[in-house]
């Protein structure tokens, strides 16, 4: 008798969730359309620029950024070499599409994450609410984010960006919060003593001094976004992630390895360059 769970106590959550989503879509459809339109515009423009640029120019930009970020000839050669490697695998175009998604996701994460991080830093109450949400978001399996994105925005690159942002934004919020909270109190006190308003203190003292930590947050967000694009390819994000997905479906490990290597290369290039600039700034203020 206890082999089967009694269906009399069954809760039918799925229909309710689906109903709720249809209701939300019916009621706030305009809002979702607007969000989608904004993201699509950002994304398409980025993609246009990146694919329009001739590859030697892209290589040049990578080389120049690598040089100014690291000031090391070896790093410059290696990072530019990684970009060349992507091209030699034949994944240059796909890498540009992936890069567009990453940049869009990081930009949107920054626009959302920075104000939330500031709020959490300035109010202990807000922090108490936001912190468990971030903990939850970071323990949630990445796949779960695909579901609401898919439901509200359908298939394609827009929901992919949304899922990526949701997955990647927590470290930026956390580190913005941490950065502002650990700013030297003597500088804040001095600004206060000279009659600075809370807004002036934020602008003149807290944000500039927290910037290295915030940059570390951006860096982490970028890395997580790169990890997420592979998963987001399941709901239609084109680019390198899709290649990995195809390779899995077709049991073609070589192809998957190449595409995976390209993602790693992109990650290394972005990481070294952003970290390099962050370190230089940190050096200049300490």
């Amino acid at each position, binding site marked *: 008798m206890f082999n089967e769970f009694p269906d009399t106590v069954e809760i039918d959550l799925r229909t309710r969730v689906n109903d709720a989503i249809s209701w939300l879509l019916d009621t706030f459809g305009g809002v979702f359309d607007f969000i989608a339109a904004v993201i699509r515009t950002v994304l398409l423009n980025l993609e246009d620029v990146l694919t329009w640029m001739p590859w030697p120019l892209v290589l040049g930009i990578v080389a120049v950024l690598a040089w100014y970020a690291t000031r090391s000839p070896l790093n410059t050669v290696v990072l530019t070499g990684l970009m060349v490697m992507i091209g030699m695998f034949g994944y240059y175009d796909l890498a540009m599409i992936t890069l567009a998604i990453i940049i869009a996701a990081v930009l949107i994460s920054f626009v959302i994450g920075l104000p939330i991080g500031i709020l959490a830093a300035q109010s202990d109450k807000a922090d108490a609410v936001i912190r468990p949400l971030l903990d939850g978001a970071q323990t949630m399996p990445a796949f779960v984010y695909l579901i609401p994105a898919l439901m509200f925005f359908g298939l394609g690159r827009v929901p992919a960006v949304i899922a990526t942002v949701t997955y990647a934004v927590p470290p930026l919020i956390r580190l913005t919060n941490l950065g502002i909270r650990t700013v030297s109190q*003597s*500088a804040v*006190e*001095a*600004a*206060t*003593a*000279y*009659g*600075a*308003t809370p807004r*002036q203190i934020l602008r*003149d*003292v807290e944000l*500039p*001094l927290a*910037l290295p930590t915030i940059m570390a947050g951006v860096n982490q967000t970028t890395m997580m976004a790169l990890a997420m694009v592979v998963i987001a390819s399941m709901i239609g994000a084109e680019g390198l992630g899709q290649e990995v997905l195809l390779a899995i479906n077709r049991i073609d490990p070589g192809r998957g390895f190449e595409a995976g290597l390209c993602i790693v290369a992109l990650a290394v290039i972005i990481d070294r360059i952003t970290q390099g600039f962050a370190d230089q700034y940190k050096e*200049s*203020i*300490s």
Partner: protein
Amino acid sequence: MADENGILLECRKVTKLFGDDGNTQQVLKMVRDGVAKDEIQSKLGAVVGVREASFQVHQGEFFIIMGLSGSGKSTLIRTLIRLIEPTDGEIIIDGEDVTKMSEDGMRKVRRNKVAMVFQHYGLLPHKTVLENAEYGLKTRGISWQERRDKAQSAIDRVGLSGWEQYRPSALSGGMQQRVGLARALSHDPAILLMDEPFSGLDPIVRRQMQHEFARLQEEEDLTTILVTHDLDEALMLGDRIAIMRDGEIIQIATPDELVTNPADDYVASFVEGASPARFMVARTIMSEEPLTAREGDPVEPMLNQMRERKIWSAFIVDNANKVTAVLSYDALNRAHQSGTGAISVGRQARKPVTCDPEMAISDIFPLVLNTRHPVAVVDDRGALEGVITKNMLLEALAHDIDYDEDEVETPSSETTTEQANTEVTSV
């Protein structure tokens, strides 16, 4: 700026409690009833950071708050502009009680009336020296050009010209504190607050900065409140010094009074190590009964008086009590023997060596050594106030010497006076 009494800032029974959540009134009552700090802490768990501190700072005054760490001195200076909120009491700056002000009103006071220099400089590391120096003016909303001019002038005054475009991290500690000082000076404050500004610097730089600041204070007629734990600094810079212990001000006095007349054993032990030569002034040690004569006075009674009082030099003064010359016993005696009946300022008389009543006795030593007569202490119009002999200087210093009286044979003060004065006349 200041009120009719010249008072620019006044603290009235300012108290700051920590950990007093929920029973502030109860703790305040205990504070008013004079319950000891330890007892309040053990009974109610509240720490009395500052206890009923009251003092007045006058226009142009250099006021020092001195105490050991934990005495509440840094807390007190912060309550003055509410960087730390005082729990009780009134703080009147320029006629207004800042404890009753709104946040906005308080910001206006901070922008327009005070400037603060911090122990750890509190500079903005991402801004240049020039941008740091103009920060106070920026919060005040002053135009770019005026800001630059004022900041540049302040940078020049603290001796940082040429460093305008550097970041603070490129500067040594002493130079960073100069930036902090430039930021305060460019603000042109009615009151300058300084929280242990020189404590973080190494000793040589510290001395140098103290001297430079003393000069600035004089030149720019600043009104300054400075917190320090360094007695020498307090004695050197301060017009008046408030000594704090366990959150309480236990004495407010001039450096001179503090050393010669400490309020209790604590202050006495505090100032014990101070070298009196540096801050005791002529007025404190001088004899106020100098032997004087006027031109034309009879010689013989004067000689008798000199022998009687065993003082071997007499000052000749005019009708305004202004010192014109000094005569030795020998010179007078020779004049007497050659038949002169009245004192005259002739070939025998010497030009007296004079000093100001506020001169530190360390500066009087070279004067005393250059004359066989006592040094005349005169006011700014040249009128005689008293005299200082070598012997008086030695006695003043002797207070500071730790000798065992049983072993050292101390001559009676009378003989000492005689010997010293005999020596003076026989040089």
